């Protein structure tokens, strides 16, 4: 199903799907130098984009499980796609990104004065 939708976005050549470049806007509530305010990527999933954005940051060790290599977001980052938390998205981190989507990364504060 997802494949079919994505093929509608792209051009179809001899039964093969070609993906479009999509622009994703990124809002952050705190500066992270490695994460730009927008990216152009081949259409993919929210999880893939997060992986690409976060795995190379200076704080990568905080968000990558040392045993499984998976992203750990709980208690570290609130992730929203177009204002909806990834927990509330039908496909969660597997949600397919579309041109013009906005990803919002809110750092979770574990502490207070």
């Amino acid at each position: 199903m997802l494949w079919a939708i994505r093929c509608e976005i792209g051009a179809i050549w001899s039964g093969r799907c070609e993906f479009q470049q999509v622009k994703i806007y990124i809002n952050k509530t705190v500066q992270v130098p490695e994460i730009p305010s927008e990216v152009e990527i081949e259409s993919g999933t929210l999880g893939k984009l997060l992986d690409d954005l976060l795995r190379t940051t200076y704080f990568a060790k905080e968000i990558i499980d040392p045993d499984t290599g998976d992203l750990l977001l709980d208690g570290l980052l609130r992730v929203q796609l177009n204002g909806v938390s990834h927990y509330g998205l039908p496909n969660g981190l597997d949600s397919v990104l579309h041109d013009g989507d906005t990803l919002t990364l809110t750092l979770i504060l574990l502490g207070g004065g």
Partner: protein
Amino acid sequence: MGKYSVIGKRVPRIDAKEKVMGQAKYAADYSLADMLWCKVARAPFAHAKILNIDTSKAERLPGVKAVITGKDFNGWTWGFMATTRDEPPLAVDKVRYLHEGVAAVAAIDEDIAEEACELIKVDYEELPGVFDPEEAMKPGAPVIHAYRPNNVSVEYHWNFGDVEKAFAESYLIREDRFETGRVVTGFLEPPASLAYYDPSGYITVWPAKQSPYFHYRHLAGCFRLPLSKIRVIQPYIGGGFGGTKNDSVAGDLCTVMLSKKTGKPVKFIYTMQEVLTTCRRRHNMTIYNKMGMTKDGILTAVESRVIGHGGAYTAIGPLTMFLTGYGTPVPYKLPNYKYDCWRVFTNNPVSAAMRGHGFTHTRFACDAQMGMMAEELGIDPVEIKMRNAIDNPKPGEVYKAVTGFKVKTCGIKEALKAVTEDTIWADRDKMPRQEGPVSYGVGLSGTAYHGGARQLGHQSCAATIRICEDGTVNLITGATDCGQGSDTVLAMIAAEELGVRYEDISIKRVDTAYTPVDPGSYGSRVTLLAGQATQFAARDAKKQLLEAGAKAWKVKPDDIEIRNAVVSLKTNPEKQMSFEKLTKIACYEGAGAVILGRGHSDYGIDEPLDFDHGTGEGGINFSFTAQTVRLGVDMETGKIDVHDFIIAHDAGVPLHPVSVESQNEGGAIQGLGQAIYECFVMEKGKTHNSTLLDYKMPRSTDVPDIKVIDIITNDPDGPFGAKEASEGSHVSTPPAVIDALHSATGVWFKELPVTPEKIVKALKEQGKWMK
């Protein structure tokens, strides 16, 4: 207030007897059989590479059971948020401040543990240090963290309105440099903890924490255990004030690691010297403030450039720098605002939060500068504040600050009116101005503070009410009373909502195995958020009781009321039964029931904080404080005697007037320390005044007469209309003292603390010194 049975009454504190009788047990009072003692070995350099650590001699010392180094923690680091977790429990590759922990020992007594620390041989390569933030920002300065090669820990650049245009159109512009002091919280109880790592994989700790659930998460992360296997049992807490007790310290994590290694319980207690040389301290800040006004003294713009002295690690610094800028648009209407800040790493001990978090720096600068501009414009200092003060919004309306946050109630004008009508201000010209070498002055301030700190769902909190069948009540929350009196207030809220007597409520201290998760005591949040959770839990329990009563009396639940532990029929008040009887009916009739009420806070956050852009709502509501100070200055010696504080504080509705008064008094006295007494004396990372004898805090004999006036605004977002009480008077005191010093000496002092040496120097420079 007459409509309430408990709220607003001057009841004794719920823990007063235990504390007065010496029965309250603090972390240091706990012990277990076969317990070991932990001591931390500390570095003799402020900045050095660790080449090698040899613990063999220490391990061979009789009585030593285990020695650990930073490598035992497998690279785990902690901090306030994912992007800034840069602090290890013990230094691994290099030390970044003097006396940073490098190893820890568990031994059968404290003396042996200390002796073993001295036997640990560490090879260092000393590195050049940097101790001044402005030096640390220069190219080529020693780099403290590789991930921040410019030594800037965090920086924000906010711009609201059109500051340049506003300055261009201003009648008067002032630019001044202010500096706040490097100070410590001053709790009486040092950090301490007893820890036991059960061989089956459970951790139990009894630590001195004002936010025990942070420590709970730190332990789970550090030891890679699920939260369900971490148990934090909260002892009584001997003061907090933010910073150290809202965080973990090396000793907290080392005791658990040493317990894991030895299979025995391990305890540590920091000495006061360790507190004063290694624990969290307030950021001292350099504030370059530019303020514009019209000819009539109306504020046109403020531009603040702030450099925060961060010390060796990030800790909670990102929030400190946010709050430092966040507080500038209150309590005065500010149409244009620019804020640039840099928190800078240095080889000094770590800076973090403290009472009056952030606000205290910029409110001091702005309030003092407003006084200077009033003088230049020839406008009365009260009048200039009143012209700019935010009006109290009408019910249902809000005042929206230039940065976007909303104010629903504001008592600043009423507070300014109250303190200036009091005789200390009103009759100031009738009092002697000069007696011998002593010159007297009266000063005024008007400030604000934010309460009910909350961000996202992660800082929610809950309460449970359990009705006992004898008519008494257990209140169970995850909130921590670290001395501020919140247990008393929460018990009062429960009693009021249930309709029982205050003395029928028993509140349980935090035990993370049983109590609901709670963020902790900071940001003046407990009364507001845990208070609301308690209110909801009590309503839930009461609903169940009323249903049982209605069934017994064959009426509707709404027909019944409970007040002062007496249950009656609204239409026939003669028909009564005791609350105890109602609980027995509810618990025993039919199949029986256990009456449990539960609630959680739901005060929403319209918009989360955006650190980079300066927007968002950091909490629930704002308190407002006006204060006058009367003092005398010896114009020969510079000695200051402070005689009177008049504090008018808008706490919404004072739920427990005794606590509101004592919190205002305590906050103001702590603020007085920062205004004229306290400051760490530092040289190349070394704290010279590392005892409480040398680090001068106000003593009881230094405390002035204090009068607290309640300003009632009845906020729609606080339980029973409440707002914070405590941090507000801490923020209002330094600018009021500065204004009074100017009144007495004619000198505007811009650097805290204003010590006698600074006064004499300034008097000499201005030809006012009386020899």
